[in-house]
């Protein structure tokens, strides 16, 4: 398998993996018990999806699925910066989730038609969950945006500080350009149009203003991450690093 395609699969895996790691931080600390459960559910779904991609790569490369999340160094991660951003308050987490879900759902939709049958079948399985995630996060963005003046302000803040990270999903990395030529990855313009349409609709319904003149923050796909990633993987990899080569 070409390095570009491996990198593409790593991106597919690392995005939900790192976000799932962030969501795991919420477990036991949510604002409402039912929402604590719902967020854990999303974490379970997306880490489960990541695991499917890692397992696929592991089969190809003769490695173990855990080698990818647990034994790679910072610069080898291919996830976008958005998923590394700290949880902030519940509104920040919902806004980040909503942006992720907009990409995730429409990207998966396109991936169901990938030339790579294994990736297409993972996408078919995951899109059902992603569709539920997208309605969950959309509803929360609307509920909080159109809730109280205080919640509205918090959500406007969230969209202002997170929007610069949204664009990166749709800026094709070299490995995506290559994978697209092979018919493995989708045309990001198409994904972007659908995702942005959904995004705008929900923002409108949430009575939130669309920030203007946003300068995209990017680099994650090529391994130039935020300072947060090192800490995230320090926890993620702690036991595998401290006790190399044993089984848990």
């Amino acid at each position, binding site marked *: 398998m070409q390095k570009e395609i491996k990198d593409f699969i790593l991106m597919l895996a690392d995005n939900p993996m790192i976000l799932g790691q962030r969501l795991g931080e919420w477990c036991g600390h949510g604002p409402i018990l039912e929402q604590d459960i719902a967020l854990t559910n999303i974490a379970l779904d997306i880490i489960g999806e990541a695991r499917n991609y890692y397992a696929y790569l592991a089969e190809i490369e003769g490695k173990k699925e855990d080698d990818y999340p647990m034994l790679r160094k910072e610069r080898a991660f291919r996830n976008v910066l958005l998923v590394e951003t700290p949880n902030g308050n*519940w509104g920040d987490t919902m806004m980040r989730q909503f942006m992720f879900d907009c990409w995730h759902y429409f990207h998966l939709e396109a991936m169901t038609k990938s030339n790579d049958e294994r990736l297409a079948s993972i996408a078919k399985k995951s899109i059902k969950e992603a569709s539920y995630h997208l309605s969950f996060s959309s509803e929360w963005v*609307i509920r909080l945006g159109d809730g109280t003046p205080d919640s509205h302000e918090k959500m406007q803040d969230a969209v202002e500080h997170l929007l610069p990270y949204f664009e990166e999903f749709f800026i094709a990395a070299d490995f995506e350009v290559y994978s697209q030529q092979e018919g493995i990855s989708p045309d990001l313009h198409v994904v972007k149009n659908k995702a942005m349409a959904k995004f705008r609709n929900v923002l409108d319904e949430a009575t939130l203003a669309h920030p203007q003149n946003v300068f995209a923050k990017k680099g994650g796909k090529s391994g130039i991450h935020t300072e947060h990633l090192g800490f995230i993987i320090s926890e993620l990899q702690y036991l595998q690093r401290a006790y190399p080569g044993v089984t848990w």
Partner: protein
Amino acid sequence: MSTHSLEDRFQSRVDNEEKIEPRDWMPDAYRKTLVRQISQHAHSEIVGMLPEGNWITRAPSLKRKLALLAKIQDEAGHGLYLYSAAETLGVSRDEMLDQLHTGKAKYSSIFNYPTLTWADIGAIGWLVDGAAIMNQVPLCRASYGPYARAMVRVCKEESFHQRQGYDILLTMCQGSEEQKEMVQDAVNRWWWPSLMMFGPNDDASPNSAQSLKWKIKRFSNDELRQKFVDATVPQAEILGIQLPDPLLQYNEARGHYDFGPIDWEEFFQVVAGNGPCNKERLAARVKAHEEGAWVREAATAYAEKQKNKVVSSASVA
């Protein structure tokens, strides 16, 4: 009917193993006992999420991480069932949470101990969920219907948790020397607090007799503790670890394991708020609740707006 004959009828229904349902007459003290016990149980499920949640981001493999997330999510679900069961007795979830946050309500003291290594996650599943099962299986036959039914759902999941915890330890015991030491250390720390989960000895447990008569409880604290020890010792042998009790020994005559005296001073200190993590656990729950206030307010305000929209569009039509 006089209170006296109502009470007689109630007790004879209990004696006949009929379930008491929310609308049935019940003695005030029965209702109070249930509210206290069920809400304490619910709080324990929720506070219990914290020590295990401490290891989610550091779980050693994706498989273990997913299993741990799912387990903690189950515990949150148990909290929900139990709060609902308590609500049928006329107390709201908000009131119960308020009692937890102000320190008026208790939760199981076991969750005031820290999870220091990954083996603690295995030890909690094996011992703490294991002790919980011993306590809870008889509660599936509790006289109060909503409680009994909640416990049926809870128990199915708890036994899964126990097997999962045991599997963590078994895998580690088949691994490196360091892993085995980690397991032994965790079991050393969790064994005695797990025995304390059954509560004070029978002679120091004045309310037990009434609970037994009402068939809320089916076995005494000491009976349950003995069952737990008897079931757990052989499992420890399979792991190849030592339980930290030099007096632990099979007693042929009794047909049970004898075990050493429990440090009740430690137990009462932890219950009184002086355990290693009492302050942290309560602070974490209070923080989550307070930081969630604006979210709950916004959700209520939004729901209110939606309702008004429906009303006004209905009045137009």
